[in-house]
Structure formats: C-alpha cells, structure tokens
C-alpha cells in the first residue's frame, strides 16, 4: 500500500496512492494507521483523491481508523472522494459516520476550529 504521510501541526495527512483500496491492501492501511496511533498521532485526514475503487474491506479499514481515533479522543476525517467512491459511503450509510471534505486543505483546517 503506497501512501504519503505528512504532519501538519497536530494533524497527520495520509494520502493513498493506490487506485484500488480492497481486500488485497486494506490490512496494510490498517497497519499503517495503527503505527501512527501508537506514535500518539490521533488526529488524521485520509485523502482518497487518487482512489477510484473501494470495497467493503477498504471501508472497514477506514472505520477501524475512525474508531481508534475516537477512542483516543482524536478524529479521523476524509477528503477527496471520487464520485464512485462517494457512492460506496452512501450505499453503506458511512457518509453519516465520517466528516467528509472536498479537499485536504479544508479537512486540515477543520481541526483548527
């Protein structure tokens, strides 16, 4: 799972550099997020700009990250959802669980408020 990980103030930005987020690589993403939690990084933005396809295990990895962040009094927010990816969140009603932003700037800024 190719990702770019950057810190901006107290927020970590994870950009996913894979076209597909599926049962083949979702556990790797979960692992990368766990490492960040263990380093005390409890506020995250996951940028899905480059992702064209997500399956239920990809959604599961994001839910796992969200629960971990919440349990540590942090938050995990999403941005950059392509239309087909967005429709997956609607289908599974997960768009009501996550805070979702158009782009990473807006998602990062939202932590300042």
């Amino acid at each position, binding site marked *: 799972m190719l990702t770019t990980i950057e810190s901006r103030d107290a927020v970590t930005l994870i950009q996913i550099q894979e076209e*597909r987020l599926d049962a*083949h690589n979702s556990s790797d993403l979960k692992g990368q997020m766990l490492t960040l939690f263990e380093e005390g990084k409890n506020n995250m933005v996951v940028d899905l700009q480059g992702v064209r*396809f997500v*399956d*239920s*295990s990809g959604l599961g990895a994001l839910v*796992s990250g969200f629960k971990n962040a919440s349990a540590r009094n942090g938050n995990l927010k999403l941005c950059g959802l392509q239309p087909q990816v967005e429709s997956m969140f609607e289908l599974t009603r997960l768009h*009501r669980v996550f805070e979702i932003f158009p782009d990473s700037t807006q998602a990062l800024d939202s932590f300042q408020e």
Partner: protein
Amino acid sequence: MSESIFLDIKIPNETGYLRLLGKIGEYLAQSLESYPGDREELAYHINLVLTEAMANAIQHTADAKRSEALHVTLRVENRKLTIKVYDQGQGFDFSNLPEPHPSCLAEHGRGIFIIKTLMDRVSYRKYDGGHVLEMEKVLF
C-alpha cells in the same frame, strides 16, 4: 441472442488477483452496448461484487484446498449477466445473515449486503464439495 458472452476463469486463490478479475468484469460491462442504463456505473458495480465475492471465497477457503484455483464464471445471455464465484470452504447461512445496522461501526459484514443491494438475484448453494455464490443482473 447475439450478445452472448461466456468467460470461465481460474486464477490463484490470492487477493493479488482481485484487481485483474475486477477489471475484466469492468470491461465486460463497458462492452454491453445494448444496456440502456449507465454503463460506467454498471462497470463499477460488477467490479465491486466480483471483488467482494472473491475476497470471501479466498478468505474462507479450507486450508487443504488453498493451493487450488479460484473459479469464477461470467455469462451474458438473454440480456442477463450471471456471475458465479465458487468457494471451497465450510459455507455459511446465506439467508439468515443479519443486515448491517445503518449506524453500525463494525469493520466487517458489508460485503454480502453490497452484493444483495447491487444485484437483482443472489443465491448461495452447495456445489461439488464446496459452494457457489450466484449473482444475476438484468440488463434491460
């Protein structure tokens, strides 16, 4: 009648091949010129249900069968797309699976729900020492 297509596919029982099969399903859907709906959306959905069904089949393969091929068929006939994904596991109670709760934060349990939502008919039954998940999409 003329738009009749049959693909019979055997690949290694590994998640690394989800993409290849998903893409094949996607292209198959994109080539269905007589489909009156949104072909790009259909293509995404076929990619997705194939991925979900194969991921389940791979995950639940009995250890003794792990080195055997994963078997998938796709058939277009009489304006209907039928996908069959065969597994070699212990099976599960397909009809009594709980629906995921809208506000549920479970990490698992959305695959079959997605398949049932996107396809017109889905069944699961014993077949030849394993099982077959059969998914149908009406194309008109």
